[in-house]
């Protein structure tokens, strides 16, 4: 059974759990999200069964690849959503990959492929849009066992400027040419379809911005996982789901329902979180709500002032894709990463930041101190630097993480006279 097949079972079990043993404060529309995720996995498997091409493009070219006729998938999500990652980790270690010092997601994929948990796809695309190890992992897969599979390499510059837009668009053209040649008659760029998807996403982002504003309400109508998981996966841009979610959150506000009973304080969580435990429950137990998750995609869902570097002119559809890629949180300049984090923290009036010092995250680890110093200086709020990995408890166990979070919360509450 591959990952997608097993994930469908897991998602169905989660829906059943919601129906039979609902948690009082979880969003009911999560059920819709799980159904959409199931459909996504089923579509993917169907695509594979029919021999149609899939492309692992992440957020880099999700809409573009759909507009070309690919089934886009993001293996990073698969690695992230895996409920039992340790076999993949051990497989990756067996392969000689740097498991100990690397972000869990960046070797997990190779482990999943080599272990037969993930079906293969062509063409492979390699890009650094999020981080360099994301590209390295794909080079590894492409050159494995002497096979130099034809794959497309895309480079995302870290500066936001006109030259970057122009360059990314040129690369999109090359990707289109590459893919149309590889799959003649099957893959064909359809600009009208791209515009249709962009229009859908614009509306989706608008709905997300509405939900973002609702987080300013006290108590926060949703928090933790519901903040984190609203933000990824292509089918989470489904408008029917987002409208239902928005309406459910609005109803909670009307009824005074808070996601964290007796919420006293609110924090922004930056970079991934440990997945071997539920840190948001630990915080909730301490009456602290996690009202924003700040990461690669997360800043698409906040109404951040966008860098306008194209003179305000109307962008062509491909230029609009390029502008979106350029706004991705990871992989840009450090100043941009911290600027946006500070902006959201200020706008949402958070009381503290929890910065997950994810071992191996070369996109953010080198910026942790900058977050802390600027948060202190510009907002007067403290930052907890929480070390660990997403799945591997050898670096920080559940007990250790829990103790640190408890201690930080007690310190915060005590400082505010709320302990």
């Amino acid at each position: 059974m591959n990952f997608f097949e097993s994930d469908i079972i897991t998602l169905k079990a989660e829906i059943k759990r919601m129906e039979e043993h609902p948690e009082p404060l979880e969003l009911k529309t999560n059920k819709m999200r799980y159904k959409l995720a199931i459909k996504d996995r089923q579509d993917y498997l169907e695509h594979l069964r029919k021999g149609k091409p899939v492309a692992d493009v992440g957020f880099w070219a999700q809409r573009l690849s759909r507009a070309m006729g690919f089934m886009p998938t993001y293996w990073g999500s698969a690695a992230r959503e895996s409920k039992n990652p340790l076999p993949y980790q051990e497989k990756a270690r067996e392969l000689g990959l740097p498991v100990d010092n690397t972000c869990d997601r960046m070797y997990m994929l190779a482990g999943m492929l080599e272990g037969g948990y993930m079906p293969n796809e062509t063409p492979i695309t390699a890009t650094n849009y999020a981080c360099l190890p994301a590209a390295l992992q794909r080079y590894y897969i492409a050159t494995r066992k002497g096979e130099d599979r034809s794959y497309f390499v895309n480079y995302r510059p870290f500066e936001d400027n006109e030259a970057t837009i122009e360059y990314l668009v040129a690369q999109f053209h090359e990707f289109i040419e590459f893919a149309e040649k590889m799959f003649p008659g099957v893959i064909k760029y359809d600009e009208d379809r791209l515009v249709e998807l962009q229009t859908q996403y614009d509306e989706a982002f608008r709905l997300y911005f509405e939900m973002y504003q609702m987080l300013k309400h006290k108590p926060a109508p949703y928090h933790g996982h519901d903040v984190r998981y609203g933000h990824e996966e292509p089918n989470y841009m489904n408008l029917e789901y987002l409208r239902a979610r928005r309406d459910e959150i609005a109803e909670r506000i009307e009824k005074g329902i808070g996601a964290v009973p007796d919420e006293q304080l609110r924090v922004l969580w930056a970079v991934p979180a440990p997945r071997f435990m539920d840190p948001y429950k630990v915080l909730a137990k301490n009456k602290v709500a996690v009202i924003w998750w700040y990461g690669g995609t997360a800043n698409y869902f906040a109404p951040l002032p966008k860098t306008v570097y194209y003179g305000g002119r109307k962008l062509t559809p491909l230029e609009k894709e390029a502008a979106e890629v350029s706004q991705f949180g990871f992989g840009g300049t450090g100043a941009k990463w911290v600027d946006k984090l500070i902006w959201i923290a200020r706008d949402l009036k958070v009381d503290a930041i929890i910065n997950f010092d994810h071992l191996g995250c070369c996109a953010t680890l080198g910026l942790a101190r900058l977050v802390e110093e600027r948060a202190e200086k510009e907002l007067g709020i403290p930052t907890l630097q929480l070390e660990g990995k997403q799945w591997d408890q050898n670096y920080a166990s559940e007990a250790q993480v829990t103790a640190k979070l408890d201690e930080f919360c007690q310190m915060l509450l005590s400082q505010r006279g709320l302990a």
Partner: protein
Amino acid sequence: MDEVLENRLRELIEGNSEANRSKWAKEAKEWTKAGNKTKQGKKVIGVMTSYVPEEVISAAGMIPWRITGTWRENVDRARVYRAVSTMAYPTHVLESVLSGELDFLDGIVTSDQDQDLKCLWDVLVYVNKMPWTFCLQVPLSVSNLNYRFYAGEIRRLTKSLEDYSGQKISDESIHSSIITYNKMRSLLSQVYELRKRQVPPLSGAEVLGITTAAQVMPKEKFIQELESLLPYLETREANVKKVQPRILLVSDMLDHPGYLRLIEEHGLVAMDDLDTGVRYFIQNVDTNLTDPANALAKRYLGRHGVPRMADWAGQMDQILKWTQEYKIDGVVFLPLVADYCQRFREPNLRERLQGIGVPSVSLEREYCLANVGQLRTRIGAFMEMIAKKETVGRR
């Protein structure tokens, strides 16, 4: 042995030692012992990666100077900004910056060759201890589009240097600089040719000394020295305990010869795949191309590169070719802790080496010379293993 030439050679080999490395740079900028400038001589620009086209810096009338981070283990100042699990070279460079050791620099240029290097640049911008910093954006692969983009980056660097220095950098001055650097590259290529000998004139540690000296000395001075020493090298024999097994060393950001000396307690480092070694000078810039930015882009992007570049198949082919050309008995990988680029490529490369009967070992290392006992033991065991292989000595 010609004592005079041997002494000059030793001086060159020690060019990047702790005592000497900043000597020429400080002389060039007329930096007094007190750390004050009597008058402004040339500006010195610290360089952190081999994707920075030094020719442009030289053309600006400045001295490019490859930054060797502190070789001390204690990096407490840098630890404020850099976690233990981040790459050590940028951490040691930051320590040097924050401690004042690099106060003589007029700026630092790096690239996003590695994301952690880019993050260091972010910190340098934030701490604001350097009057000028720059980070080049380097594409991941080679194509006409990427050459054009990278040429654009080189022009962006040129413009930034012009704004900083207040002086125009002409195409002619860049072209002249290219000719000088090509000369340096050709001389170093000749040194590497001599390494193919059964008893080469230099040990691997000595060669690293020379290539790192090239990166901190004014190029004209380095060229003059090496050119005059080449005839002597033709007759010299390396002073090593053993000339077999012959090892090819693979790493990045390795500038401490102590690591090579550990290997050479048991054999010879006959060749390398180092950014501080062969990759620093491999492939000349094409002087037939009229636009210097394009010419530089073609060379810097197109040459055999770091594993961050997508052409792993080509890189591995080149390394395997070197194992034949240099009659290599084994390959030692010494990846720097948290160097993902090297570590991700390593399994595939080691498998290919195994396929042609070349054994290898991988030992993660710190930036400064550390964990010597452990490394010595493991290297020793590997070298002993390959020394026993019956293929040694057949070639």
